[in-house]
């Protein structure tokens, strides 16, 4: 089963409103249970970083192995309502203007377009990145002072606030 097929399947389940799905094929056994506390499902938007990491684990499990129990689909239902702020360039991510200063934004902070959320340093160019969305920061997806790629998600933002 290809990664794309699994993504499509999880997206379908997330959008279906089904609370529990058990699936068994010759290649894979999948057990998906939605968190009962999670809000009504919303259409699947796009895989975000946390789900992308989880998927290869499923794929790499040989068919002979015991059933894969994955808690990720619940996350998909949760994160699909979020949007991301992505890196505009290749460089190094800095959460604060300087090491001794507090970060530009933290989890729980409200952002809107124009609010500076981080600095990306690219070959000695210092780039103050503004948010292009409105909402509340749910998660910072990148460690301070680590390399980021072009279009890599940096922040998870809940726009429904």
């Amino acid at each position, binding site marked *: 089963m290809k990664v794309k097929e699994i993504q499509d399947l999880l997206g379908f389940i997330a959008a279906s409103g089904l609370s529990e799905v058990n699936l068994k094929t010759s290649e894979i056994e999948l057990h998906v249970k939605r968190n009962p506390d999670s809000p009504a499902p919303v259409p699947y938007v796009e895989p975000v970083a946390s789900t992308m990491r989880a998927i290869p684990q499923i794929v790499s499990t040989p068919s002979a192995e015991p059933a894969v129990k994955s808690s990720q689909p619940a996350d998909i239902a949760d994160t699909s309502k979020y949007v991301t702020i*992505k890196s*505009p*360039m*290749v460089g*190094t991510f800095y959460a604060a203007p*300087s*090491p001794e200063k507090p970060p530009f934004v933290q989890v729980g902070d409200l952002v809107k*377009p*124009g609010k500076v959320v981080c600095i*990306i*340093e*690219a*070959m*000695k*160019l*210092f*780039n*103050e*990145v*503004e948010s*292009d969305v409105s909402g509340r920061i749910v998660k910072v997806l990148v460690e301070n002072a680590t*390399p980021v790629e*072009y279009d890599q998600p940096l922040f998870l933002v809940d726009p429904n606030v």
Partner: protein
Amino acid sequence: MKINRFYPLISTQIVGKKLINVPECNSTNTLLNHLIQNTKLPNGTLLITENQTAGRGQHHNRWFSEPYQNLTFSFLWIPKNFAAHQAFQLNMATSLGLYNFLSALLPQKKIHIKWSNDILLEGSKICGILIENKIRNHKILYSVVGIGLNVNQTQFPIHSATSLKLATQQTYDLPTLLENICFHIEKQYQNLGNFSYLKSCYTRALYRYQELSWYENISHKSLPVGKFQGTILGINDHGKLAIALENKLYHFGIQEIKFFIENV
């Protein structure tokens, strides 16, 4: 000590047509960044001081400059439609402007661009550049381009620095130099958007281009940490430095590599 007067530039179209001269400030980049957020400034606005008390270099390094001896200024560049991922072109265009200015002024001297944006005269640093961009919707909203050029100062706290006067024993008129520098930089800014042209000029001007030299690998994952000998062959599309080592090409980010400088 000569206190200079700076007037709006005449040989440029955009850069320095509006010129703000302050007697003293901590950093021209910091002050211009502050001004642009609070006032509407025209494209090319240039801020200059003769007494920069807390000049900034890369990564919170300080840029030390004696009052009235050197050029320390910043200008504002407001592009119309410039994608953030093309930002390295700003490094190239600014470096090339200064490189061309110095090459024309001192045709007998060896001028180089040390990746990514230091300007060297006979292997010693004469000029630093600090570019800060504001990014909105993956585009550069504006850039503040800061330049420090050592001119008439003759004593430096670090051995690896030099000045025009140290190199030629002449004293230079700062307003004349400013006019010249901005003319050359503005000329290069007309090439922004033409990556391959800027890249070919920039690559040829690079310090140690196609020379076998010593480097230190700090954190490139495909190479062992420590000293190695390699040859600079250019840059990639992101501005990473391309070094050949035993017939393989490696691309280094700014924190991943150090140059070993023999005369330091």
